[in-house]
């Protein structure tokens, strides 16, 4: 285990130094790697650890992006605080959704439908609110500065997104080892058996969805201030909900390193192929590539890449210690 931590520390040191050598385009790819790894990590809390499948996590990204941007434009509130307001609202909305799902025993596909519906409802509602730009969305004005969460170039975004990924993963790591995290895993493994051991599955499912939504929404604020444009379809849409779950699934569900590894594999592939395919007029082909990779992993690496990686590196890392 000590060698594993050593390896992770080394990798982190390399990542911290990368902006010295990489250009803006390559840094942008790393920003997306960290962003999606963090999103996957946030989703992982509810689905990977607690076992409730959410296909509507774009809902929380959208809330985070819209709330902080709205507060910044209307009241001049710094997105650093607007981010927390968005997180709080996302957690409240998630608790409402969770109450409906967990109190009334919606599980499996029925819970999935609930999560999709809520995200779609939010998308349609936001599409009709003029104060946040309705269908056409919001363009953010560019006022670089730390308080505005806006920067020239990609170096600041690189370090902020790296911070999100590292701190988010650390938080999930600590959660997984805590009493709460252990009870969440019991619910995932067998909810009835967990109930029989005194686990209050309603309470811990509610805690899981609130944490997951809060974390997810912070990424929304980041994204808004990185691309300067929000639209209901891109921030609340189904495409994002699917996009953000692929990395933890491919990397390894219910593990801390899974979403990170998944993102390092999938995000560069998607970013690079998107650019090159679009240049040669084959827009959308990167999605096909995605699909093929997802199928291959499901067929040949059932538990995600991490399990196989761990097995291969076991002798060297001395994981048993």
């Amino acid at each position: 285990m000590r060698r594993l931590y050593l390896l992770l520390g080394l990798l982190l040191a390399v990542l911290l130094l990368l902006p010295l050598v990489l250009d803006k385009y390559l840094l942008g790819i790393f920003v997306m790697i960290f962003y999606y790894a963090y999103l996957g990590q946030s989703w992982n809390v509810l689905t990977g650890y607690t076992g409730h499948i959410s296909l509507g996590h774009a809902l929380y990204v959208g809330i985070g992006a819209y709330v902080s941007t709205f507060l910044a434009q209307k009241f001049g509130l710094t997105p650093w605080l607007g981010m927390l307001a968005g997180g709080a609202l996302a957690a409240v909305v998630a608790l409402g959704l969770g109450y409906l799902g967990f109190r009334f025993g919606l599980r499996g596909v029925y819970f999935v439908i609930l999560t999709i519906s809520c995200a779609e409802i939010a998308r349609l509602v936001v599409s009709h609110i003029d104060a946040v730009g309705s269908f056409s969305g919001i363009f953010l004005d560019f006022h670089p500065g730390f308080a505005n969460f806006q920067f020239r170039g990609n170096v600041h975004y690189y370090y902020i997104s790296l911070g999100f990924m590292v701190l988010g993963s650390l938080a999930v790591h600590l959660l997984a080892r805590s009493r709460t995290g252990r009870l969440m895993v019991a619910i995932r493994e067998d909810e009835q058996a967990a109930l029989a051991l005194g686990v209050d599955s309603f309470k811990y499912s509610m805690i899981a969805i609130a944490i997951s939504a809060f974390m997810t929404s912070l990424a929304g604020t980041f994204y808004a201030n990185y691309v300067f444009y929000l639209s209901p379809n891109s921030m609340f849409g189904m495409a994002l909900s699917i996009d953000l779950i692929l990395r933890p699934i491919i990397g390894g569900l219910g593990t801390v390193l899974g979403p990170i590894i998944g993102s390092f594999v999938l995000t560069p592939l998607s970013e690079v192929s998107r650019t090159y395919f679009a240049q040669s007029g084959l827009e959308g082909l990167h999605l096909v590539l995605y699909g093929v990779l997802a199928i291959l992993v499901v067929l040949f690496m059932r538990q995600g890449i991490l399990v196989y990686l761990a097995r291969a590196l076991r002798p060297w890392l001395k994981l048993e210690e």
Partner: protein
Amino acid sequence: MELLRVKDLGKHFGGLTAVDGLSFQLRPGEMLGLIGPNGAGKTTVFACLSGFLRPEQGEVLLEGQTLVGLAPNRICELGLARTFQIVRPFLNISVLDNVMVGALLREKSVARARALACEVLGFVGLGHLAQSPATGLPLPLRKRLELAKALATRPKVLLLDEVMAGLNPTEVDELIAFIRRINAQGVGILLIEHVMRGVMALASRVLVINYGQLIAQGTPQEVVGNQEVIEAYLGRGLKHA
């Protein structure tokens, strides 16, 4: 005062009466057997006592407190734990982590829960397998794990649903010894069991149910000689003309 008191318990599934006016008591430190042919309603009784099903009539009192209508986790918190007939290990985590879920009910600190779980695993003879994933355990060890999980919640009453089914005689004898030791610590035990070797060895009293009704009770020796019990299991002999 009795530890567990069941009065006039009733549960129907549509037109089928699964439990019909069942009453009994479990005294502190007692081991009570619940037997009956397949489909007699034994597992339904357990589900009603542990909160997984809500009985339509009757009362269940644990040390005087009513359990009917409480959620299963609340009932476990109050001190009534159960095992499942078809064992339900948390497959993707280690044996120790499985038992820790139970231990975390009383011990809020992870370190103390780990210590309690290790103690329980040692007690049921699974100490050497603590770090193995539960998915690797064969059935006899899964049965012990099921027992360990329930035991880690520190119950006052333990409901054991066919923990001996599928085990060979040696394994049954080992399990009998474990259950005796649990009982010796003052835990009241209610035992559903088809393995008569186990019932005869453990239970001081046996309740026999058929079609949800109590048809006989007494010491194990008394009930196995009871004509009605024999008929419930084997049917009535043909009358010769």
